[in-house]
């Protein structure tokens, strides 16, 4: 029901957009892409989503993700495999991600310094263990390593990990602190559990997890949140940057960014997989996290720079903290969240 309403909205938007575009098209003839192709793709997604809904028969939020045990979507893996060698070209396909370091590294660094105060000097994150989920070519892993943290970068795409390892191998400074592993978050979490679950050596857990520009590519967010909770120390931080699911994010994040300005390679993002901050917050809080801050980010394609902004309509960054008391495990299907939220709040009060 939800999805039908949405699809009507979107189709309505599409109609409006077509008329607007055709009006522009005639005089200028400016089109480097096929608008109809975009719309065909969209209707395909919507139909697929409709089909899924019929299969599930369970009321749920609008989601193009199937509920599975794996967070990884094979089509995404394939797409990133082909781009694996291009990670470190700062002016290439991943230019926007390189530029995003100007925002996300200070975001992570400053929030971690708030939690672990009193550090100074050239390596403020010394002694902290950080997990970079979906590290790709190591664009974010390396700066964190340079700031002194022990970072483990994981990615399901083997070529990306290869690129990342090669890039960091030349720097003796990084070699000691930055490690890479080709695996998924569930595999890592299973390793952690396999080692003894609750009684596992708590020192092996991480002080922080970073999942930057990752959740919009995942197949199953519930599992993701659960696994994060497993491998994170109590009181540890979770940093997520992702894209909101709004009309504006569709217009700017997909149409403009992928088709028009080619800021991002075409087909990188699937609007259905975007998640709003409210949804994400709900999801995390039901898994034992407490969201500390949410901040909007904006990319300026002219200056090719990111900046912080008040609106979370397109991109946003989120910082959550795992609550100190262990939250009882939830099962994989989505459950009503009321109790989860209340428990979380209660726990917060107790812990102080």
């Amino acid at each position, binding site marked *: 029901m939800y999805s039908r309403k949405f699809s009507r909205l979107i189709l309505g938007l599409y109609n409006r957009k077509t008329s607007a575009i055709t009006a522009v098209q005639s005089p200028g003839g400016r089109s*480097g892409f096929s608008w109809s192709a975009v719309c065909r793709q969209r209707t395909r997604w919507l139909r697929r989503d409709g089909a899924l809904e019929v299969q599930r028969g369970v009321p749920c939020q609008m989601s193009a993700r199937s509920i599975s045990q794996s967070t990884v979507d094979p089509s995404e893996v394939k797409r990133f495999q082909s781009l694996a060698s291009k990670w470190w070209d700062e002016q290439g396909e991943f230019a926007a991600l390189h530029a995003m*370091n100007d925002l996300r*590294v200070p975001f992570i*660094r400053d929030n971690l310094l708030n939690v672990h105060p009193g550090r100074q000097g050239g390596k403020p994150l010394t002694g902290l263990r950080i997990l970079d989920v979906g590290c790709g070519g190591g664009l974010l892993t390396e700066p964190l390593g*340079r700031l002194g943290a022990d970072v483990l970068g994981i990615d399901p795409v083997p070529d990306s990990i290869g690129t990342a390892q090669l890039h960091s191998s*030349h720097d003796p400074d990084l070699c000691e602190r930055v490690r890479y592993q080709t695996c998924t978050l569930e595999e890592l979490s299973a390793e952690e559990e396999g080692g003894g679950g609750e009684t596992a050596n708590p020192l092996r857990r991480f002080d922080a997890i970073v999942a930057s520009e990752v959740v919009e590519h995942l197949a199953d967010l519930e599992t993701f949140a659960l696994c994060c909770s497993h491998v994170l120390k109590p009181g540890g931080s979770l940093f997520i940057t992702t894209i909101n699911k709004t009309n504006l994010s569709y217009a700017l994040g997909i149409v403009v960014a992928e088709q028009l300005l080619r800021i991002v390679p075409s087909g990188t993002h699937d609007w259905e997989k975007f998640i709003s901050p409210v949804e994400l917050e709900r999801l995390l809080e039901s898994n034992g996290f407490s969201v500390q801050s949410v901040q909007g980010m904006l990319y300026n394609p002219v200056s*090719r*720079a990111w900046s912080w902004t008040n609106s979370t309509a397109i991109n946003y960054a989120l910082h959550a903290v795992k609550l100190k008391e262990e939250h009882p495990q939830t099962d994989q299907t989505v459950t009503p969240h009321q109790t989860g939220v209340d428990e979380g709040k209660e726990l917060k009060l107790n812990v102080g």
Partner: protein
Amino acid sequence: MHKLTKATLAFNGFGRCFNAEKHFTATKIISRGLVCTEHGDDSGKKEVYDVIISGGGMVGSTMACSLGLDPNLVDKKILLLEAGNKKVMDKVPDVYGTRVSSISPGSATLLSGIGAWEHITKMRYKPYKKMQVWDACSDALITFDKENLQDEMAYIVENDVVVAALTKQLDSLSDNVQVKYRSKVVKYTWPMPHQAADSIPWVQVTLASGETLQTKLLIGADGPNSMVRQKLGIPTVKWNYDQSAVVAVLHLSEPTENNVAWQRFLPTGPIAMLPLSDTESSLVWSTSHRLAEELLELDEESFVDAINSAFWSNENQSELIETAGSLFRSTLSTLMPSAGIGPKTRVMFPLGIGHASEYVRHRVALIGDAAHRVHPLAGQGANLGFGDVACLTQLLSQAAFNGKDLGAMQHLLEYETERQRHNLPMMAAIDLMKRLYSTNAAPVVLLRTFGLQATNMLPTLKEQIMAFASK
């Protein structure tokens, strides 16, 4: 009809880059792709320096101290390479060094921030409070001073003293800053801007001793004939003035409260007398090559006569102009000391102007005279270099705090933009002054006379000029 092809879109992308202020980087970075690269040859776990500074003069040494003392760069490995010997000055020599610099308050702040100014004040320096500049052709004059004559305008310090103070400071920073003296660089190997499978991504510096060092960032501070700049093939706008500067140390005939810097513009070039102490002053006389050589040949007395006449004669003035301008000549002659000369202290060196069109490349930055070279008439050469040091240190510190690779283009380009914006107008102004005062054609003289006197009468304009020069 006008179907945009992929190529045109890409071109539009480049066009976009041209428009963007901060990121006209894309084409710049690609076009600055560097030529040679070292392949294969497993370097093993060779030590990689974070920063190597090539050239241990005033600016290079200041850069080394500045980086060494920055709190965000505490764990970085910094190396300074100097081809000459270590300059230690346990006791200040009685004879004054011939080469001196005017250190602006901004530069003095930088030097005191790195702890070198303290050493300088203990050694030898001379603050001056007023600067008087006048025109040989018209006696128009302009005076620069701080309001109540209590504050110092700037300082005259011998170059040797500055370098010795910096050396002393570097000794105290030996845990994170290394210095290699008597190490001449014979070869630089530049890295490819993109990661290639088996090439080393660092800059490699080969010394005359055969040792090869690797670094993430190379800072070229090796003077106006910079090898770093030449090897990079950076296009440089430069030309020689057909002038040489003669420098000497003068004894004043009577001790006086010597705290004014004097400069007179002759058509052959400016002559300046900078105070060193109550009894000594430094002479900097920029003049034609031929005249400079003649001056060096003269015996002491004739040399002193030549200096005095350069300051006092009014043979360049026409009737018209003399009546238009003269007011202070008599006053001046009582204030200005007449000069003797110190033994064996006359040297000459050629003058020119130079500006590197690019200050930075992938993993390389130029500072000081390597990037820009000016005429000494405004006493700004060293100060521009110190300004480069302050700017680059601050940007590198910020980059390190953000976990960035120090050799990355983004912050290096910011340095280039900021410094070029400051240096180019200054260099243009100095060059303009030099050209304006190189002639004694009446219309130009009248123009500059009135200009100078008008500027002299506008305190706000003078303050602006002094503020710009003091940075």
